[in-house]
């Protein structure tokens, strides 16, 4: 296991490196020079600035310099546009916690809720409850999260006064959670629906499996059989959708963060692309890639823990 883990991490680092390289090139291909849209300055002044940041050099040289800094000093460069002269890492550092906070919480919320709803729907298949859940699922899946975010903000926070309209970055503890509850909910609706849909299908299949039948013939009630055997077994394949789900939550937070004024990664992603601020974009890109690769890794490794067949190296 340890060896395998190390192998996987090495492979991940290699992938990261390729992403870094490709990302660097791609981002430099992006439109707009850093100082095009900046302030009113003379041609000479602009040229001097570009020279200072090596922007006038061939892209390969720029990449070489960047890599040198990164490897020798762990230097991701400094922001040129968004937080001028601030090391990119310092910027990202302050944004990551809140983004991870809302993303993890929505994962944390959407999994149990989705699982719960999925179970209910699967057990009561073709009942009113099932139809109701399916209806909600469709709504949640098909209506973009920015609509929900706006609706929640308007009705729950503004009209209802139950939550703050925007997030207060100074808050801590419970107040922080309270302030982030709406964005978390807005982010979770889609994933909840997806988990529900997936689990409903999966469980409906598991319920028909032989071991469920055996469980019943053993004398377990329908309920006990579903709880003890059905759910655990249908949860395993659920891990397959956690990764895409998590990345899509991350993607969703892009918009949600703006609506709720959350100073997180999602906001600077869009802004750094628009600014454009190469170094920040690259760092954000790496961050998102890393998160998704790590999720993949964790899911893969935990598969081993959750599924004894994988853990103990069995067949199939």
């Amino acid at each position: 296991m340890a060896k395998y883990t190390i192998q996987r991490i090495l492979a991940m680092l290699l992938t990261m490196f390729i992403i870094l390289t490709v990302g660097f090139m791609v981002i430099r291909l992006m439109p707009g020079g850093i100082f095009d849209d900046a302030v009113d300055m003379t041609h000479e002044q602009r040229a001097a600035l570009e020279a200072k940041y090596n922007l006038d050099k061939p892209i390969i040289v720029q990449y070489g310099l960047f890599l040198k800094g990164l490897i020798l000093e762990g230097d991701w460069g400094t922001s040129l546009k968004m937080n001028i002269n601030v090391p990119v890492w310092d910027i990202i550092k302050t944004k990551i916690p809140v983004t991870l906070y809302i993303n993890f919480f929505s994962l944390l919320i959407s999994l149990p809720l989705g699982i719960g709803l999925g179970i209910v729907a699967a057990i009561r298949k073709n009942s009113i409850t099932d139809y109701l859940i399916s209806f909600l699922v469709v709504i949640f899946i098909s209506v973009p999260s920015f609509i929900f975010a706006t609706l929640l903000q308007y009705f729950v926070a503004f009209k209802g006064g139950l939550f703050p309209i925007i997030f207060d970055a100074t808050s801590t503890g419970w107040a922080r959670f309270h302030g982030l509850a709406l964005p978390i909910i807005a982010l979770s609706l889609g994933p909840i629906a997806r988990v529900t849909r997936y689990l409903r299908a999966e469980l409906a299949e598991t319920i028909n499996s032989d071991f469920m039948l055996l469980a019943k013939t053993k004398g377990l009630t329908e309920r006990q059989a579903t709880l003890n055997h059905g759910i655990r077994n249908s949860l395993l394949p659920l891990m397959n959708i956690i990764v895409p789900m998590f990345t899509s939550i991350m993607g969703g937070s892009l918009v949600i963060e703006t609506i709720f004024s959350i100073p997180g990664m999602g906001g600077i992603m869009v802004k750094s692309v628009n600014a454009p601020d190469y170094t920040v974009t690259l760092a954000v890109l790496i961050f998102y890639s890393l998160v998704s690769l790590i999720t993949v890794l964790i899911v893969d490794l935990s598969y081993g823990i959750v599924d004894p067949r994988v853990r103990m190296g069995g067949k199939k």
Partner: protein
Amino acid sequence: GCSSEPKNPGDSNEPVTTAAAGQTEAGDATAAAQEESGPKIFHDYMTTDVDTINPHIYTMSVSGDVIARTSLQLYRQYPNAEGTSFEYLPELAEKEPEKADEEGKVWHIKIRENAKWENGDAIDVDDVIYSFKMCLDPIMVNSRASQLASDYITITKASDYSLQGNAGTVAWEDVGIKKADDYTLKLQLDAPVTAEDIKSHFNYVWTCLVHEPTYEACMSEDRSTNTYGSTREKYMSCGAFILDQWIAGSQFDMKKNPDFVLGDKIKLDGYNYKIVGDRNTALELYLNGELDAVSLSPESIEQYIDDPSIKKAPATSIQTLTINHGNTNNNGILGNLNFRKALFYAVDRESIAKMTNGIPANYLVASKCLGLDGKTYRDMEESQALLEPNLGYDPAKAKEYYEKALEECGLTSLTLTLQYNETSANNKAASEFLHKSLPEVFGDSFTLELMAGSTSVLNSYIKGWKEGDPNSFELQWRGWNTSTPAPWNGLKVYSSMYSNKNEPYYNDEFDALWEKANYDIEAKLDPAYRMDLTRQMEKIVLDEVAACPVYEAPSYNLISSKIHLVCDEYIPGYGFGYILSTKD
């Protein structure tokens, strides 16, 4: 105020409104606020985070707002007593600049002796010189250096000094910024200027003071970059407010500075900014009492149009159709004057203005720009005279010119692409309107295609012609922030020397006029003549349709009834003066 309309590409001609601090002459208001319980804090918002509050390198107007509120400039605009116009008052400077030679090339500025940093350090002329020296530093290459070196005034050798890089050819001692005595700054200029020029020049945010020890501490080892103003700790306040708390991406809290040199003007106990990216959210916050002022999105104007709290602020910019004169497609029809005229006459500005809650613009100097005798430039009869009747809308004429142009270019049909910034609802609506209405004027042979892009994408198209691709774009919306007090300066965008030019439009006559209006002492001393020059310039660009002006979109603001402003109406070139307001 805060910038509410998403910033358009090219909104870079620095708006004066960034320095919205103000002053009334009413000295009796000191006691008024103190009876109230609780601190009186103005809750404002900004739509994006600041990039830095280092005055030498900031690029965003919101950053400028924060710096302006927390640091000192030599001079600053304050509203006049009636609250109808503004005037420059000495801030860090103690009084008006003094001419130290015959011509007006050497000036002395006396600064106050009681100014202090928030940590109690006294401020003297060395602080001022240090700030300027750092701004012009050749190694750091600050983006604001050229503006400090030569904007309204051209400081001797400043430009050369700042652009020399490592060469070391120009010593700081050669630069025309000197210490006359501990509290007097001596300026050596290339050309004679007026006191007004000096005040205008030092009214800008990039002339704000930086705190030497802090600045030095933020200096990188090779002295090539500086992180001053990137966090609360790396900043030192000395202005009307002290930066109390700064949570990146989220909020700024400022508290009143008891040692502020013009302290009696400030009635508020604090001034806070929240960063609110979404307009609906901002409105909700306002309605909830969490913000004291909000700028309405075009969609919600109708709902509040009768509200007593609504206040209208003139547009910060004229929305124009930028024309790529050098485009060689369609046999270079965009370079054809007849076609550009056709375009000019074909735009139904009135309808577009109605749709955008704006003002139709058939001119290139914005209506907020100041003229003479308390009138705005636009309101002056002479300026009115050079405008086309019916707001420049004349379908018959347009069609005539269009057909002529087609013939001259040997075309039978024409398709052009108009690019706009998708985040600007007004530009989008106006584009869609033109998409429909232009073919109605020109006939079926004409098609207008629309294309949205983000700021950076649009910029890259503009950049195209500068990098040798003449066909990188055809038409694009641009909003120009013209300089309010100096309309002649604002027309810089059509001159050859301007580096952020949008369209490859060059006119020697215009360039000469611009030089004259800006640097000629004769012009400087004679405002009427200057106005005249301005009008001549405007006429040239209008006649040649260097760009096609369409509308100005004023902003509609709701200002809480708790807030009492120093001026009932928006003061062109100044603003509402939120920080001078009182609150109950």
